[in-house]
């Protein structure tokens, strides 16, 4: 019989080892799944996890890694503050869209002026848009006690409708011959989020993500606010006793995650995506939730998890086109990663003991 004994304190070793074990288990079970689909499991796993980095076309895929990883990391870092404090912003996808719309609106309104202030202004507008969108569930929660999970999630669908309306209406490219979608910001030098070093995929969003990771690390480890965030999540009553105002905490955490998600949207719309289109959002806001937990809500962990998740996106894409793997199998693989992490987490908090079953 297997017995679980609660550890007096979480195991430090297992809190690092659990994500690694989860990845290994995902590969194993994923392999079984791919075998069942009639594919060679070793080839598929190698295609997903190694080919983007080491294959002969890696020069093409490696920049993609940064482009996919940056928004995930940027959004996940923002979400991690709220998640640590027990504030569940599930609507980062919506904040990402609104951030992109606000930032793009500034760029499009100033077209075709050329000054170096346009892009910074767009970043501010993008962050502001995400912040406003996140403030809606935040303020509703503080004032009326609504559930931020439901409100933030539902606002994603509102944001998607707004996106469609913008792409087809006010933001439609007047020179676009009637096609939906805005002007391509990537072709408007003052507003473009271009590669900083050619061929690397390094754009301002990547820089922002790295700054966010460092900022989050310092705040969580060294600043009273980070301490209050952790306290509010672990022991809400103790947090009040320590002088933490729960309403203020909700507004700050929602606002921070919204602003970062909005910024991520702006970097995407001004760079890799280039324009506001109906299908602009591809689920970064939702995947970032997995990234945040896979990274243990720790900034450095999130950086690694964002990289890993970007890898499965790109590798999954290769596996789809080269090996004919269904797209659903890739989503399954990503879901499994979170599932195994949560399962393996038991080892962090409990000691497993194999005891012979005694007959009473």
């Amino acid at each position: 019989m297997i017995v679980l004994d609660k550890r007096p304190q979480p195991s430090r070793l297992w809190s690092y080892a659990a994500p690694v074990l989860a990845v290994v288990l995902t590969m194993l079970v994923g392999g079984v799944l791919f075998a069942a689909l009639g594919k060679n499991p070793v080839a598929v796993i190698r295609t997903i996890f190694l080919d983007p980095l080491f294959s002969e076309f890696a020069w093409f895929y490696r920049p993609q890694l940064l482009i996919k990883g940056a928004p995930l990391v940027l959004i996940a870092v923002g979400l991690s503050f709220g998640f640590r404090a027990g504030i569940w912003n599930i609507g980062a996808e919506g904040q990402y869209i609104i951030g992109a719309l606000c930032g793009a609106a500034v760029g499009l309104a100033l077209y075709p002026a050329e000054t170096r202030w346009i892009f910074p202004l767009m970043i501010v507008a993008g962050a502001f848009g995400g912040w406003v969108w996140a403030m809606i569930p935040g303020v509703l929660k503080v004032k009326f006690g609504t559930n931020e999970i439901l409100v933030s999630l539902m606002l994603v669908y509102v944001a998607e409708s707004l996106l469609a309306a913008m792409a087809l209406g006010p933001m439609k490219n007047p020179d676009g011959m009637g096609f939906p979608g805005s002007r391509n910001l990537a072709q408007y030098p003052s507003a473009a989020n271009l590669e900083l070093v050619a061929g690397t995929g390094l754009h301002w969003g990547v820089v922002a993500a790295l700054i966010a990771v460092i900022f989050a690390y310092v705040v969580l480890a060294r600043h009273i606010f980070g301490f209050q965030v952790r306290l509010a999540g672990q022991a809400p009553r103790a947090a009040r006793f320590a002088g933490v105002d729960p309403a203020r905490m909700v507004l700050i955490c929602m606002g921070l995650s919204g602003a970062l998600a909005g910024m991520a949207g702006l970097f995407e719309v001004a760079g890799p995506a280039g324009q506001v289109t109906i299908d602009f959002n591809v689920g970064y806001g939702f995947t970032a939730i997995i990234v945040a937990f896979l990274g243990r809500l720790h900034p450095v962990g999130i950086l690694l998890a964002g990289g890993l998740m970007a890898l499965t996106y790109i590798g999954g894409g290769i596996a789809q086109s080269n090996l004919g793997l269904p797209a659903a199998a890739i989503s399954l693989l990503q879901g499994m990663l979170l599932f195994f992490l949560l399962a393996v987490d038991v080892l962090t908090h409990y000691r497993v003991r194999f005891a012979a079953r005694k007959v009473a």
Partner: protein
Amino acid sequence: MRETLLALDGLTKAYPGVVANRDVSFRIGRGEIHALLGENGAGKSTLVKTIYGLVKPDAGTMTLNGAGFAPADPGAARRAGVAMVFQHFSLFDAMTVAENIVLGMDNPPSPRAIAGEVRRVSQLYGLPLDPERIVGDLSAGERQRVEIVRCLLQDPKLLIMDEPTSVLTPQEVEILFTTLRKLAAEGTAILYISHKLSEIAALCDTATVLRQGQVVATCDPRQTAPREMAELMVGAVLQSPVRAARPEGPVLLRLRGLTAPAPHRFGTALKGIDLTLRGGEVLGIGGVAGNGQDELVAALSGEMPVAPGMVRLAEAEVGDLGVNARRAAGLLCGPEERLGHAAAPDMTLTENALMTGVGRMGLDRRGFLRWPAARDFARKVIAEFDVRTPGPENTARSLSGGNLQKFVIGREILQAPRVLVVNQPTWGVDAAAAAAIRQALLTLADRGVAVIVISQDLDELMEVSDRFCALTDGRLSASRPARGLTVDEIGMMLGGAHDLEVAHV
């Protein structure tokens, strides 16, 4: 000699790093009230859990009624006739008494059918209880009655009671004892766990003393001096708190018509509380839990702000200030609930020291934390209050109740408060730690600090207080000098015992 009901032989149970019970043997006779004494961590809970089927011993045997007894789970123990009333009630506030009782049964009848049975049993043993009432509306004493009646319905042969009087008024204690004596007279054995030696002397036939997992003595509590038993428990000579004569200081805390609505459905509203407290004074506030203690502490700590003039610290109005502003002004609190309120269970002692000490101890610089300074502060608390832990990097949860209590009280005391308010400072704490905490509070008062001790333990209040008042249903009685108050007078001040009656024997 009584006929033996339960015999324990050589029970041993080890956990990683600690032997909770080592070769424990003793006998409980039919109809005997048997006290189990020991400090926190002495192994009482492990032993009781073994008997109740929650823990399996590594070695040793138990014999119940002459037959081998090794319950696989509490259900098996209950079927064999062992019942237990836990220190912490496991009741649902929003449900009725009858529904709660049904929930704890193995083969539950309908709540309607149980109601008559509850009335009958409660009448028989002098434990008046209305099966239709909502548990959230009951006092702590009444809640305990629900637990006891739940056990009695199973017609137990052995009833285990863990610290049953910690939440009762003196009158309620007397009623409980009458009930227990009646049960014993009918042949039910009772295993009674307590720290309160005077109670054990009044109630029990035999006492087994545990220390560090071993039986160190078995004695007749009616023949043994309480002090001797206490020293057996701790294995050392006990120091009673010493109180020096103190000059009267200036008024430090003044409450004027402190009124606040109940913070939640089962909370208590505060109704016009007036209070004046001078430096160097210890004010004891007695009362049964749920009469506004938590709310009063919240109103003083700043967790529940009130109108500015309702709370004055020295001459300043602080009623509308938040927690940290009041701390900065010198009004410090130690709440009742150690884990989750006074301390964050999964955080280290360093982090817990920082939690309330950050402002007064200067543990941050413009919001950036000075971890080395916080660690030093935690070490200082650990050293000065004899907190038994390997070091400040251990989590609060890993400490025993008494040690954590010493830590959270010590944390406030070392911040040099002007006024310190503590709620249940020694609840569930062993005798030696309790004495140390009381001594620390008195020493603090000697230095001119105004101290409020809120407690349900009247012996404790009498030991430390200069003045005493009672909190009943959110109202605070006028204070009286503690010296010379009798237990009966205190009982009258507390009230809350009016619906009790003695067993219909």
